[in-house]
């Protein structure tokens, strides 16, 4: 399944300045792997700074989360809370 992943501004320089990257992935894990393979510079941020928003729901840690058909996927920075 093909998914369009939107990168936050800070990540774009690490991905050939692309805002949206189209990858083949069924789960968050596959998505992150694919991004890392294609853009090795993303490996470092993906390790600890990234959360994935799927259809508006933010997943901080969960690799197993499946990506629904036509999912809207964004990479976001992990947030701090009080």
């Amino acid at each position: 399944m093909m998914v369009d992943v939107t990168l936050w501004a800070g990540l774009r320089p690490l991905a050939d300045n692309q805002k949206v990257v189209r990858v083949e992935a069924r789960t968050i894990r596959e998505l992150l792997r694919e991004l890392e393979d294609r853009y090795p510079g993303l490996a470092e941020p993906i390790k600890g700074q990234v959360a994935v928003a799927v259809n508006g729901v933010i997943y901080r840690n969960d690799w197993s989360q499946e990506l629904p058909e036509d999912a809207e996927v964004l990479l976001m920075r992990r947030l701090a809370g009080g």
Partner: protein
Amino acid sequence: MSFDATYQNKSFNSVGTRPLRPDGVDKVTGRARYGADFNMPGQLVARVLRSPHAHARIKNIDTSRAEAVKGVKAIVTAADLPDLTDGDAGLFAILDNCMAREKAMYDGHAVAAVAAIDQKAAKAALNLIDVDYEVLPHVVDVDAATLPDAPVLNEKIFTQGVEPTPTMPSNVANRAEFGHGDVDAGFEQADLIVERSYKTEQTHQGYIEPHACVANCNPDGTAELWVCTQGHFVYRQNCADLLGLEASKLRVTSSEIGGGFGGKTHVWAEPVALALSRKANRPVKLVMSREEVFRASGPTSATSIDVKIGAKKDGTITAAEATLRYTSGPYAGMWAELGAMTSFACYDLESVKTVGLEVVVNRPKVAAYRAPSAPMAAFAVESAIDELAHKIGMDAVDFRIKNAASEGTKSSYGPVYGPIGIGPTLEAAKTHPHMSAPLGENQGRGMACGFWFNFGGQTCTDLNISADGTVTIAVGTVDVGGSRASLSLIAAEELGISYDDIKAVIADTSTLGYNDMTDGSRGTFSTSMATISAARNAIEVMRQRAALMWDIPLEDVYWEEGHAHAAGTKHGNRAPLSVKDIAAEAGNTGGPIAGHSELVADGAGVSFATHICDIEVDPETGSSRVVRYTVIQDAGKAVHPSYVEGQYQGGAAQGIGWALNEEYIYGEDGRLQNPGFLDYRIPVCSDLPMIDTQILEIPNPNHPYGVRGVGETSIVPPLAAIANAVSNAVGVRMAHIPLSPPRILAALNEANG
């Protein structure tokens, strides 16, 4: 076992009731033990030496005179905390903040610490540590720090997020941009535009309990830490990483916590206490003074924010733009970025652009404070929204309703919203009696909205059923304000037993799996999910035990209302088995009964609130008083409504203090002038009215009971709500928080010519 977190829309027996909290008696009798209420045999007293300079190179530290003081057992400096952070900038910032390495970066920055047999010896030694400082130029103001001639704090900081990468170091650590659409085109379409700059001053979480810990390192490599923290597992990891300890050999016990609000989410002095203990080979107790708390822990960002919003005459916003500068202390954080993400989150915007600029200054390292960064952004945006509504001639609530985000809206920070509560809170505000109550002389009414993300995260819970059928739940999220009561209600609901048969305890790091902190409004959300999961697992075990007791197949046993039932009629009219019945036979049916859960609680629903307040201003002195205050917020599902109300009221009170009187005041020398509760003015009892609350329940689709986090959002709207009320009362737009009497009086004088 995989856990289905989908919302079930069930009716509740326990959830939504208001039982007495299980730790209440301990806390009203003085028996509850907080950070400073614990001692170990042979324990030493620790004191920290702090920089009197806002910015200074540490040329040399000579501890020889201090070491000679009788009763001094250990002195540590940065040399005793070698850099093991391996390029992790966030961890390095925590390390450098715990103990200054090359430079003292702010007034109050730790430079050395002493452990001695008593306060007297520790104090004497502190006065005899000779630090050779080279005082450097400093900058504390957010705007001044971005000027070309500002002293550069860190030669290694080149603004990230701009192309091409700058060649000169700067105090702007990074730039983050969010938004969509074409704002320039949007402003072209606008009939009216409001554009204004705002400022907010730095505040502190102001928890009443200073940081405190007892550290004990043994020669065999094991260690213990008793500490007040929002997350003992995180503290364990921080300390293990910074001191080179094995995480599993460091047992961290969280004390009762006397307030945190984000300020106890990472370590401050705990690694120092452990380092002292390691060096002295004795337990060490370290308790910060109030002055140390203000000078060297916690604060939030000071900000400078420019907002521009355009709308058509019919009230449709065509474009919105903001540039947000946030101080982060001496180390880069993501505070401006959070401000940029949250600023327009309440609205459905065709074109929006926000830019966050993270500014390093010679102030303490910024820590999270309840919905970090959102209140200042909301102050600026909600002030501008109000001003624009006035300009258009529309009611402030109607204008917001017209532009409010709803399910399917693409948020200003990126994702598309699911079901959300901004519209309903606004509709509730519109019809709330407060909105139509008459105002007295010199009074003004203001309202504002607020947003916060809410977190989930890693969670682990144990649920153990005793032989008498009572239940212990061991959780790993620190109870900051009543979560033991909420979680007991959840367990009672899921198991179908009485609240009184459940005891919730906070387990230490050696007896339970890892848990993220109690932050991001995640405590009840995440741990309730894990508790439901653990209860379901325990029910599964009890079904098996019941099948065994009845000698019938497992599939013929179902669970309902706290009992195992035999399905159908083929097993005769067997009386259902209660938890107590099954527990009593546990020894014969396979041993202790327990349910465990390890999960990542994702899908925390975003949270919205709308606040209304009335302010009375004394036109002759600029003094202002909150005369009425109403909080309306979506809780998803209020598990224990009293403590949900408490979160709403507490957040509002903190926001009111921020709006009116709280601020860090620095002298020309860069030293903090008000490190105490006398001149850092948090609201006192006589400053506030009763705070009315209205809980809305728009279920979170990603939680079995529909729960959303409730802890933080309530601090987001007050700054703007109060600024709008004061502006309406005095007829002058107030754009600098806090709205202290001198600022209000100056504005009144200007308006009156």
